[in-house]
């Protein structure tokens, strides 16, 4: 493995690829810094620019966006008091108060260094655990893979919010999208007489439409309903390096614990940066000798928040690369990116394309280093960019979405797909339907059908799914995750239900 890693490192450190990682990190930080834009959106917008690149260059650029995006939220969180991404909400709790006390540079420095260490820890875990998980999953046959996909979908649907039923509906809709067009027997399905539908719906315009389009429209909606905050950026940000080193030295345990929490949460399907953020912040507060200081601008709060949300990046790659099951929404999109570049994530990838695996590891590590340098050197510019009005940003990004969808196959029909799924995504959001299970369904639908059919072709017996131990366990876990979510939803509903007025 080491020689492949070394070979990949040489490829990734070529000036051209290194330049792409730098561009990716910069765009990722900008994407994360702009409130409401998110890492996922940055990945979707940048992706079309990789169409003409070779897989390693394209994936390196995307990983740069990924690495930068997870740390970008700290900029607007500290400077404006607005979390750039949902995964940096708890950064605001202590980062903004510290900035208000006149120490924005200290808050940013702590956040950026924590983010870097969190990502490095997660890559170390990814490098050590990833191949082990892949080698275990090499023994998975079509029954186990089918059950694993069903489990991942139910888990994500259950964790996507209080609406379990809606999450399951979204996941099923996503799977249904992948059944449009010719199947592997060359029979067309749901084409309704349109030739364009015979080749199926492309994953990218569907994902951009459902997620990005609806998110952009919501940004405009929120922006219009709230008055402009008209925040000013403090131009005199200086980073007190010695102070930050002292702060970090006193937070070694917090840093390690939060990074490991982030990695673990990232590896679990359906969770992601936001959950990691809150869990590690809560743990840091519980373990702290001064829990009352949390929320007033204390370094441990920023360390816990930023190290955990960046550690999600490496953690989320574990199930994606080793099992072919993405851990969260950005990773589902990343998996789509890999598939569109002709790379099928899963255990076989470690055997078939170890150089690419090495390139992913290397890009993450290099991306983390570049992220620190860019953040510390350019932070005041990022803060300014975070103030770009949504009214300007939204139309421009819509154009990028449209052009990206067209450029995939030079096909105008894909733009109509984008538009139709944009409307669908927006309506689903308005109906309270979570979009993550839908995107995951779109990404995993092809694999689910392929593995299900392979299982049935090998043995025409549905009971085989229940008689094989691993497959049966995974299906039992899928049922369990649905039941637990239903119980949790009921408990939440009972707790939040308004008490009826006393009679008489």
């Amino acid at each position: 493995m080491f020689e492949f890693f070394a070979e990949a490192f040489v490829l990734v450190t070529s000036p051209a690829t290194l330049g792409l990682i730098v561009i990716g990190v910069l765009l990722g930080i900008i994407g994360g810094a702009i409130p409401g834009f998110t890492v996922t959106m940055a990945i979707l917008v940048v992706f079309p620019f990789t169409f003409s690149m070779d897989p390693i260059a394209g994936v390196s650029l995307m990983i740069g966006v990924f690495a930068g995006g997870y740390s970008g939220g700290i900029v607007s969180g500290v400077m404006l008091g607005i979390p750039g991404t949902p995964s940096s909400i708890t950064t605001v709790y202590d980062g903004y108060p510290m900035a208000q006390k006149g120490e924005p540079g200290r808050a940013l420095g702590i956040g950026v260094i924590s983010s870097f260490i969190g990502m490095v820890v997660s890559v170390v875990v990814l490098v050590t655990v990833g191949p082990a998980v892949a080698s275990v999953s090499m023994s998975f046959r079509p029954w186990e893979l089918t059950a694993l996909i069903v489990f991942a979908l139910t888990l994500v649907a259950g964790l996507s919010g209080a609406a379990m039923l809606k999450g399951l509906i979204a996941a099923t809709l996503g799977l249904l999208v992948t059944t449009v067009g010719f199947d592997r027997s060359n029979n067309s399905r749901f084409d309704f007489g349109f030739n364009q539908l015979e080749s199926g719906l492309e994953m990218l315009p569907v994902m951009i439409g459902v997620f990005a389009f609806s998110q952009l429209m919501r940004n405009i909606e929120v922006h219009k309903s709230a008055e402009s905050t008209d925040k000013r950026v403090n131009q005199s940000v200086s980073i007190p390096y010695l102070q930050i080193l002292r702060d970090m030295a006193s937070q070694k345990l917090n840093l390690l614990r939060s990074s490991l929490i982030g990695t673990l949460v990232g590896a679990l399907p359906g969770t992601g940066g936001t959950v990691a953020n809150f869990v590690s912040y809560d743990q840091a507060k519980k373990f702290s000798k001064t829990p009352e200081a949390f929320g007033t601008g204390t370094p441990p709060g920023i360390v816990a928040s930023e190290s955990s949300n960046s550690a999600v990046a490496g953690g989320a790659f574990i199930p994606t690369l080793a099992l072919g099951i993405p851990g969260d929404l950005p990773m589902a999109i990343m998996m789509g990116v890999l598939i569109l570049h002709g790379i099928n994530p899963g255990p076989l990838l470690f055997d078939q394309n170890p150089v690419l695996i090495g390139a992913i590891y290397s890009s993450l590590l290099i991306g983390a280093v570049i992220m620190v340098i860019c953040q510390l050197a350019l932070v005041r510019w990022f803060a300014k960019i975070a103030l770009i009005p949504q009214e300007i940003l939204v139309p421009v990004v819509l154009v990028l979405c449209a052009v990206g969808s067209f450029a995939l196959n030079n096909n105008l029909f894909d733009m109509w797909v984008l538009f139709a799924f944009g409307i669908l995504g927006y309506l689903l959001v308005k109906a309270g339907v979570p979009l993550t299970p839908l995107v995951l369904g779109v990404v995993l639908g092809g694999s689910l059908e392929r593995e299900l059919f392979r299982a049935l072709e090998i043995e025409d017996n549905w009971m085989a799914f229940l008689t094989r131990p691993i497959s049966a366990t995974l299906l039992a876990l899928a049922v369990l995750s649905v039941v637990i979510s239903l119980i949790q939803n009921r408990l939440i509903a009972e707790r939040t239900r308004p008490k009826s007025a006393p009679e008489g």
Partner: protein
Amino acid sequence: MLTRDRALALSVLLGTGILAFDSLNIREPSSWQPYGSALMPQILLAVLGVLGTALLVKSFMSETARDTAFLAEVVGFARRNTHILVLFALFGIYVFAMPRVGYLVATAGFLLAALALLYARSGRRVLAVIVIAITVSTLIYAIFQYGLGIRLP
């Protein structure tokens, strides 16, 4: 009374019904295939039907005052957010116009219209809108056409 969840459940069931009907046209399995191409979609449609029905039933079991004000809420939303509806319409026109007038004219036109709708509230901003629309559309064209070698219409 139509509530948000009921409207969603009915839409899901209607869509499921249409697709289930269409799935009957999918070719039957050949002699060597244990299952045909319709198997997967029909499994998914059955699941969707069950979930839609469950949501419909649930919507009758837990109805709140907010749920019953759904239609009024939709009308209110449309009135408050006409700019979003217009933006959707503008995007539809943009997609329609792209093959007819070409990328540059369609994109510059879309950006002008969308930025005018959302941003241009003063004379100075109108100038900014024109500059942004022309610069962005030309820049994207140059990057794709010359930088990435991808031809735009």
